[in-house]
């Protein structure tokens, strides 16, 4: 489903190159629930960005559902994301100028789908916000916003869902609800779930944990 080989990322910093990720190789099978953990600055988010094709590696390759990301240009990667990838961010990242419903519709509309409204209605109900679709993000609580974000992430029935510290900005109750929704989707639809977190409790619920430290793969355990 998703694999990376000898993935390395360096940034120029203060006149010299700073290596953020070094020689990362692993493979994730379809339908897996994988947690990527590690201390701050260990390269978790960078790895997530590379796996999702948001950024280009300095060397190494990523293969997503049979597509070599290095062979796609910026727009090609965007189209692949639109079709196969969902995102959940720590800061929710709803588009503030769009209502909850419209936020959910965006991925469907981008793909040219005609059933955007019906799909949004269905997803809003599923995340328990059936009557809040017309609200703007600023009018929703953090937990509600993250549920809308979750609904948006699933709008195109993605094969892979990337979640970057999805509970980082939420209290325990809301965080728990989000994790339940995520794992439910993973279980019910076989969506591959790749979750970045430094919450050990959350990592324990994953089927597999990839640990990073100083940009290097420390361990990859089931």
């Amino acid at each position, binding site marked *: 489903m998703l694999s990376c080989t000898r993935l390395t990322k360096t940034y120029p910093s203060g006149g010299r190159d700073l290596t953020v990720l070094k020689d990362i190789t692993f493979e994730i099978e379809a339908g897996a629930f994988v947690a990527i953990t590690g201390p701050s600055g260990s390269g978790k988010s960078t790895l997530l960005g590379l796996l999702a094709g*948001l950024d280009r590696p300095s060397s190494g390759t990523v293969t997503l559902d049979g597509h070599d990301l290095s062979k796609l240009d910026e*727009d090609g990667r*965007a189209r692949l994301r639109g079709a196969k990838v969902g995102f959940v961010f720590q800061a929710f*990242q709803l588009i*503030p*100028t769009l209502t909850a419903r419209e936020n959910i519709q965006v*991925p469907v509309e*981008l793909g040219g789908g005609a059933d955007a409204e019906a799909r949004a209605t269905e997803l809003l109900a599923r995340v328990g916000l059936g009557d809040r679709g017309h609200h703007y993000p600023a009018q929703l609580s953090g937990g509600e916003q993250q549920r809308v974000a979750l609904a*948006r992430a699933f709008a195109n029935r993605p094969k892979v869902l990337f979640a970057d510290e999805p509970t980082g900005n939420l209290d325990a109750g809301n965080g728990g609800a989000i994790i339940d929704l995520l794992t439910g989707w993973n279980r019910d639809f076989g969506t591959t779930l790749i979750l970045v977190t430094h919450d050990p409790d959350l990592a324990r619920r994953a089927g597999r944990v990839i640990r990073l430290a100083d940009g290097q793969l420390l361990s990859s355990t089931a």
Partner: protein
Amino acid sequence: MKALRFALTHARREGRAAPRRIILLAATVALGIAALTAINGFTANLRQSIRDQSRALLGADIRLGSRTRFSPVADSLLGVAAKGGDVARVVSFDAMAYAPTTRATRLVDVEAIGAGWPFYGTVRTDPAEAWSRLTTGHVIIVDPSLLASLGVKVGDSVSIGKAKFEVAGTVVEIPGDVTALSAFAPSVYVPVGDAEATGLLGFGARLSYDAYIKLPVGSDVKAAANGVRAPLRTLSISVRTASDDERDLNDSLTKLARYLGLVALAALLLGGIGVASASRELITRRLESIAVLRCLGAPAGTVLLAYLLEAGMIGLVGGIIGVAAGTALQLSVPALLHGMIPVNVHVAADPATIVLGIGLGIWVTMVFALGPLLGIRRVPPLAALRRDAEELIIPRDAARWGARLLLALSVLLLAALQVRSLIVATGFSVALAVAAGSLALVAAGLVRLARLTPARLPYTWRQGLANLHRPANQTASVILALGFGAFVLLTLFLTERSLLSRFAIDTRPDRPDLVFFDIQPDQVDGVRQILKDGGATPASFTPIVPMRIKSLKGSPVTALLTDSTRPARGERPGWALRREYRSTWRDTATASERVTDGRWWHAGAGRAAGAVPISVEEGLANTLGVTVGDTITWDVQGADVVTRVANLRHVEWTRFEPNFFVVFPAGPVDRAPQTLVALTRGNTPAARAALQAAVVSRYSNISAIDASVLADAIARLVSRIALAVRFLALFTLAAGAAVLVGAVAASRRQRLREGVLLKTLGATRAQVMRIAVVEYAALGLLAAVAASGLAIAGAALLARSRFELPLVVPGGALAAVAAGLAALSVIVGLWTGREVFSGTALEELRGE
């Protein structure tokens, strides 16, 4: 296709989310569109009205015009042209009107009207029946302004030459009359039968004999005119049809209106600059949203398209508002140009102007937004994940240069379409680009300078000045917005002032302020004595000899006139060949002349054998196609004088003194029939009036003009046009203010944060306010200083290249503008950020 559908949907949602921003930007664009629609809609109305009223403009189908009485040959040709239709005769000449009761005099344009004129169009007089009394004789109908300058009323008597008339009424409306021009010499209508009685139709008078023809219904006007054009031309008689008049009037008036449109275009372009800076700011604000869209699978092009379409929607709204407002304003343009247009302009919404206005709104908005919006392509999707990716670097790649080229070409094209002249359009575009570029440089300089704020200044001063260089400062936007508007306004203001000062009465004691002309040689001593008795400075007398060209470089004029096919447009050699030249003789150049080619002759050269050396004005030489060494034979009242062009002269025509196309040396034409012009100085208006009355009551053939009357007339004409220009220039300033509001509003959120933070740290409201005042006053003042500098350069260039006059810089007015701009900047700054100073800043911040 699906990309377009998504882009449209997203653009609509984005627009809905920030109505205040949309309305402000649309208003910025609408101001320019409104001004442009008003002036271009009016131009369309004007053209249509001239077309509809062209026959009424001339008052006939054809007019034959001559400087001399029609000969029997001319009369028979007139009969041929008339084809059995009606003919009316009009004789016109300049004369002095003299009111015996008040002893007041005034130079007037006498129109001696024959029965029947005008065949088309209406004459309205006050009282209404006055025009019909004209046929009964011994009455005159006058321009209303004459009553005031002579101090008489309807029913009083006024003398013209040797004849005395009763004022029967005043003119309200008459075909072809440009009332603004009547300020030079108000029109007086007399019966044609009484023209002879004035005794002014003799030698020396500048007479026009016109025959107006009304052809039988259904006749081909063009064919009738063309049938006699060639033979009449050899008799120095011009042939004009109503469509000639229509074309000439259209040429001059629409040209004026089109140039006025450039001022409106400047307002629109400033709106475009506002859109550009708002777009740049929008990307920064929407960076995360754009990154999220990219994460969700939106190709960069789709997102770019969405924001470009949103700009287009703003343009559409601005275009619609602008066109609506402009069409309403169109009603006021005839009032602005009142008295300068000889037709009744029928005001109606012009569909083409409306469609063009809306289209222009969309295009200008999109083309200005495109460059900044290209930055969207560089927003990394990673920015949704990582905050540190936020610093957006917009590379200067090919697409960006392409966008700039498109923008430059668009501006050039819009200007070219407006004035129909690539040279003027290029000058306009370059001037605006230089102005915008210079203002950007000044802003960059200010940012650097603000870093050097001395530490010993009070805290609020340091803080306010520091705001000019902090990240996300509005220095560039504000300087550009205010400076650009002020630049346009000031350039026009300075040009106007320079023009006016050129024509203002010269108060230096050695300069003449009163001129007498048509003086007969035997009246010179009498006039000299009257002036001396009246306390005037001793007059200088200049002789004037009327003459015509007989042959040019060996070719007889008659042959040249029949040969020369009339050029499509521009100069008409026929006019220069046919006209009567009023030349003088002297052996030196005057102060207002400069020899540009060849040399002046030695005194006495005129009495030597061979061709007489003459000096020709350079513009005329160009028209006639002669240069130094060419021969011209003159018909001086029946005597042939062979001359050779000795030199070409540049003449400052605007000087208040007699200037000449052709100057002869003393000798060859001394004894030709001539009149003289006398220049003197009366010093006060009362003295000038008394001198005129004294001369005119003694010699009724002598005319006089008061320099101050002339200056007033010109000032009135210039200020008429200046009013229209200033009216349009105000739109530029308004657009600048709108852009300013937008720029300040864009930084509002950051201001709120800073304000709250400062208050949390213990700053009082007064201190926070003082910081803002310092910042905005500095911005306003600097914008004013930069705009003044640019305007002085621009106006100097304009004054020198277009009007050949030096620039006048009214320092007081410029200082007032600077203070005004600083005040405007402070007011807008404080008003837009008013929540910062209120007690509720924190709630305001939360509510964002």
